[in-house]
C-alpha cells in the first residue's frame, strides 16, 4: 500500500528503516527540524503497513540572493530536492517517482520555475530514474562531492545538476540540452 503524509517532527524516532541504510545519511536534529520549520509542505513521508516509514523526500523552495541577480549562475525561484530516500524493503515500488511528483506539484502550487537536484556522476541508476521522470542534466559541477565511492584514489567526484521545468516555465528557458558538457565550479553553485 502507498500512503503519503507530511513529515511530522516525531518521525525522527521512526525513520530507522530508511536511515539505517548506508546510502542515507542521518544528520543532527537541526537539519530535519530546520526543514520542517521552513518548508513543512515539501517534506513528505510514504507510509507502509502499520505506519512504517518506507520513504521520504525533503525539499525546499528558494532562489539565489538578489545580489547574485546578474550572475550567469543565478537561480530563479525553484524547488530543490535535498534528500530522497527509500527503505531497502520498499524499493521497486515506484515510491521515488511518487514522492518526486508530490514535490513537483508543490513547486507548481508555489509558482516555482523548476525542480532541481544534485546526483553523483557515477550514480547512473539515479540519473536514469530522474531522466525517466523528465529531468535533464543542466550542468556539471566539478568536484562537487569531496569523495568518490567508486574510486578511493580520487579526492572528489563531479555532480550533475538535473532539472525538470515546472508549469511556469512554458518556454523551457531554464533547461538546456547537453548539460553534461556545461561545466561549472562548486563556488558557482549557490
Amino acid at each position, binding site marked *: 500500500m502507498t500512503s503519503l503524509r507530511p513529515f511530522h517532527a*516525531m518521525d525522527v524516532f521512526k525513520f530507522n528503516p530508511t536511515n539505517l541504510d548506508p546510502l542515507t545519511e542521518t544528520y543532527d536534529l537541526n537539519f530535519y527540524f530546520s526543514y520542517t520549520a*521552513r518548508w513543512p509542505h515539501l517534506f513528505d513521508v510514504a507510509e507502509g503497513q502499520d505506519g512504517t516509514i518506507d520513504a521520504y523526500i525533503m525539499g525546499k523552495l528558494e532562489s539565489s540572493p538578489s545580489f547574485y541577480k546578474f550572475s550567469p549562475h543565478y537561480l530563479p525561484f525553484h524547488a530543490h530536492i535535498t534528500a530522497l530516500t527509500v527503505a531497502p524493503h520498499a524499493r521497486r515500488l515506484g515510491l521515488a517517482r511518487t514522492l518526486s511528483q508530490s514535490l513537483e506539484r508543490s513547486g507548481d502550487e508555489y509558482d516555482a520555475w523548476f525542480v532541481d537536484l544534485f546526483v553523483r556522476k557515477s550514480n547512473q541508476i539515479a540519473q536514469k530514474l530522474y531522466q525517466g521522470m523528465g529531468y535533464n542534466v543542466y550542468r556539471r559541477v566539478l568536484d562537487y562531492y569531496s569523495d568518490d565511492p567508486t574510486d578511493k584514489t580520487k579526492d572528489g567526484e563531479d555532480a550533475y545538476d538535473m532539472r525538470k521545468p515546472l508549469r511556469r516555465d512554458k518556454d523551457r528557458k531554464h533547461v538546456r540540452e547537453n548539460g553534461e558538457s556545461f561545466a561549472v565550479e562548486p563556488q558557482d553553485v549557490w
Partner: protein
Amino acid sequence: MGDQLLKDRQDAPIWNAIEANNFKQALKLVDKRLAKKHTEYLEALKVFIRSRSPLASEKAAVLLHLEGLAERKFVLKDQESIELYDEALGEVMPQQQEGWGRIIGELRWQCVKARPKDEDLSLKSFEACLGKGDLEHAKQISNSLEKSFPSSHAYPFWNIAAMFLYSISASYPENQRKLWGSLAFAQIGKLALATKDAADPRKLPLRSIQTPQELLLLHRITEANGNPVQRLEYLRDPSLGPDSLVAKGEWQLWRFKLKLLEEAYLWKELFNTTRELLKRGRTKDESGQLVETRMCDWLVWEGFIRSWRNLDGHEYKDAVVAEVQAHLDPACGIDKAWKRNASLAWVKSSFADSTPFYLGKGPDKVSGHDRIPILLQYLHQYGTATTAYNDLRPFVQQMKPEECRQLLAVLSSHKVFGDPGHSKYDLSQAREDSKSDYEGFKTASKLTEHINVYKLKYFITSRLPEGENEPTCNYCFEAQSQYCASCLKTLAHDAAKLYLCAVDGGRSEWNLLPTDRHPADDLAVLAAMCFIKLSKTGIESSDEPLTSVETSYILQAIALLEHAASHSQSNFQIWLLLTRLYIRLGCGSMAMRAYENLALKQIQLDTLSYSLFDRISSFHPHPFGHVLDDSTSFKTPIESLRKQQKLYRGARSHISHNSWLSFKHGSYNTVFELQEVSQTLSCSLSSVMSVIENRKISRLVPSSASEDSNNGGYDILPPNAESLETRYADTNDYATFPSFETTRGPSFEELCRVFPAPSDYRYRNDLATEKLIQLVDPSVAIAGANDAVASDIRSYIESNSNLPEMDDSEKYLTPAENLASTAYISLLLIVSESCNPELWQEPQFQAQLDSYNKDLCESLEGQIQLIENAKDLIPAFAKTLNLLYTAYQVGRTAFYSSKYLSSRGKEAHASQLEANKETLDLAKRLMQIVADRSVVVKKGLDEGGWIDKVLDSVLQVPGSEGETESVLGSLKDLMDAGRLEVWAGDVVESWRDSVVGLSYLKALAS
C-alpha cells in the same frame, strides 16, 4: 561571547580577562570603569563576572541581585545588559526553567513593555522566552507585537499560537490554561470567518487565514477547544477546505476530512468524497497529465471501501468494482505505486464482502468469493517486491484454519512461481553448470518471489490456530504446545538451503553495488527465526550449556546470520538480530561488533541504544578487550553512554532554535510538533537508561579522572525523575527488527528477547535505588548533600504510597532483578522510616519496620539460593552474568545501608541497629558467594576445547533422539568450514572477554 556583547572599545581589557578566565582581574577592571562612569551595562557586566566565580557565596549574591531586579520590575535600557544578566543566571542556576521565567523572562517583558515599538527588541525577547519555555512572557510579548504592529499579517497568528502553546503546557495553572485556550480558539475562529466572508478569495483582508499552515493551526486549536462538527464545517467550506486557494493542495486537510467523516459515521458523504478523489486521481488534465495522482492514496481507498460496507445498496459495491477496474485498466496510466493500491483494494474488498466479488473478464476472471486465488493473483503481480508479504499478511491472518491449509498446500506445491530448483543443487556440479540452469533462484526478482512464498509458509506453519484447546499444526496436524518443531525444522532446512545455494559464488554473481543488500538475505533471516523458535521447543536443563538443544539452535541461527552478514554488510536487520543473539550467549564483544555495524548516529542513539546498552552494567560493564579480525577497537560502554547523552544536550538548542524559526516562517504546525519532540526527549526511556547504566558502571569499574568528573548525566533528566509525576516516553525502536509474525500477536523482537524490555517500572525503581546508593555508599556520596537526598527519598516514598506492585514485576524484571527490587524497596523504607523520629510513636511503626526487614532478609536469602541453584554457569550466558552482577550490587547496597544506619547512632531507631546485624551478615554471604562463583566461571573458560564444543553444537544437535545432525550440519558442504572455525574461535574469545568484569565482584571486608 565578548565579540557579541562588547559595547565599548574601552571594555576590551575586561573581556580579555574574562576570556582568559582571570575573573579577579576582570572584576578589578570593571570596578575601575564603574568608578569613572556608572552605566547599566557595566553594572550587568560586573554581575556577569561575579556569576563566573566558583564561590557559592558569590553565586548566591548574584541570584539575589537578579531576583531583586525582577521583583522591582526594573526596566533595562539596552539589549546587551539583558543578555549579560541572562548569561549570569545560566551560570548560577543552570537548567532552571522556572527560575529563568521569573527573573530573566520578567526583565525581558518589562523592556518590551517599556518600548513596544522596538520590534527588534520584542523579537529577540520573544525568541529567548520561547527557547527557555517561558510561555507566560512569550504570550505577553506576542500580544504586544500584535498590538504594536497592526499592519502585520503574521503577529496575530504568533499571538494565537503562543496562547495555544501556553494552554497545552502542563507547567501552568489549569484555569489559566483553559482561559488562554478559549481565547486562542475565539481569535482564530474570527480569522477563519474573515476568510470565509471575503468577497474575493484572491484579495483576502489582512486579518484572515491565508496559508495552509494557518489552516492547520485552525484545526489544531479547534480540535482541542471546539468540536468535530466545527472542523468538518471548515473542511466543507470552499474558502477554507482542502480544495480552497488558501490550502494550496495541503494533503493533510484531506486526511482530516476523511477521518472526521468516518468518525461521524457520515458514510454517504465519505463514499462520495473518496469516490470523487479516486476519480480525480486517475483523470488527466488538459495537457494529458495525471496531476492529482496523490488522490489515489491508500487512505482514500480505505475510506471508500469502509463507507461502501456501511451503506445499503448494490450500487455502492458496483461503484467500488468500477473504480478498481478503472484504476487497473492499462490505459489509465497511473504509476505502479498507485496501481498497487487499487490491486490491494480489490483484495481488501474481497475479504470484506461475503458475496461474490468479480473482477476481470474471460479466463482471468476470478471470483472474490474464493479468497485464495485472489491472494495468489496479487502475489503474482507484486511478488517481485519485498512488500508483497507485508501487504498480504493482514488478509492471511483473517483466513480460517482450513483456508490456511489449502493455501499452504498450494504454496508448497511450487504452483505459484515454479520450483526454485535448489533441492537438486549440487555444490560441485554447480560450479560447472551455467547460471541459467538455476534461473529459478538466480535473479533478484525470482528470488524475491520465492522469499515471499517462504514468508507466507512460515507465517502459516509457525502459527498455530488461535483459540483451540489442543492446537494442532496447520500443516502436519500434530498436536503442539507452542510451535510445530517438525514443520519449523523442515522450513528452516529448506530456506537455509535455498539461501546458501543463492549466495554460492559470492556477490559478484549478482552484480551488486557495495552498498546493496543481497536479495537472498531474508531467507537467512527466516531460517534463523525458525532456529530461534526451535530453541524454545526443547528446553531441558543441562549442566553444560553447549550440549543443550536450545544452545545448538541459537548457535545455528548465529552461524547462518554471520554467513549472511559476510555477503551483505549493509543489512541492518541481520546486525540487529546478531546483537540480540550474542547478548543472549554472553558474548559482549561480538554483540558490540554487531551493534557497531549498525553505525548509529544522532537520534538513532536514542532509539536503538537499548539494543545493546540496556542492562550493560550487568552484562559487560568493563572495556572491550577482545579485538576482532578487523582490529577495530570499540568504545567502552561508558564512552558510548556519554556519547548518547551528548545527543540530548545538543537537541535542546536544536529544538528551541527551530521553534523560533517556525514562528518566523509561519510554520505554526511545526511549533507544536517540536514541542512534542522536546517533551519526549526530555525524559525518554533511553535517556533514563543512559544515566542509570552510566552510574552503575562508574561504581563498579575504575575510571579515569576525566570520567570521574561526570555525575552520570543527571543533568539530561528532569529533577526527581523517579517521581511518578514524571512521564517517561518510550522512543525505543522495536519495529525495525525483522518480523514475519502475525500483527495480532507479539513481534519477533518480543519473541527473541533475552530479558524483559526496557520499562518505566524498572527505570523508576532504578532511579530511586540510585538515590539510596547516593545516601549510603561512601564511594559515591556527595558531601553535604545527605539531607537533600534523604528528603528526596522521603518524598519519593510519600508520593508512591502504592509502591510498585510485586504481582506483575516478573513482566519487567529478571528473577535476580525481581528479588533485588524487593530488597531495594525494603531498604528505601527502612532507611527513610527508621531515621524519621516523627514516625516512631505511630502504633504500627515497629510492626512495619519488622516487616521491611523480613522482606529484605528473605530477598537476600532468595538471591543466595538463586546463585547456589544456578546450573550451566560455563560459559557464562547473559542470564548468568545478570544474576551475578545484580546479586553483587544488591549485596553491596545492603552492606552499605547497614553501615550507614549503624553510623547514625541515636538518629536511627534502636530496634533497627539489631536488625542491621542480620542484614550485614546476609549481605556479606551474598557477596562472598558471588565472588566464589565468579572465580569458578573465569577458571572454567581458561580450559581448552571450547572451539570444538561450539562447532559440535552448531553441526550436531546433541541429545535429540534419532537425529544426530543439525540443520546446518546437513548443509555444511555449502558453508565455509574455515570461516566457521574462525568464528567459533571469536565466540570463545568473546566469552573470555565477557567474564573479565567479574573480577570486580569481590567480597567486602567488614
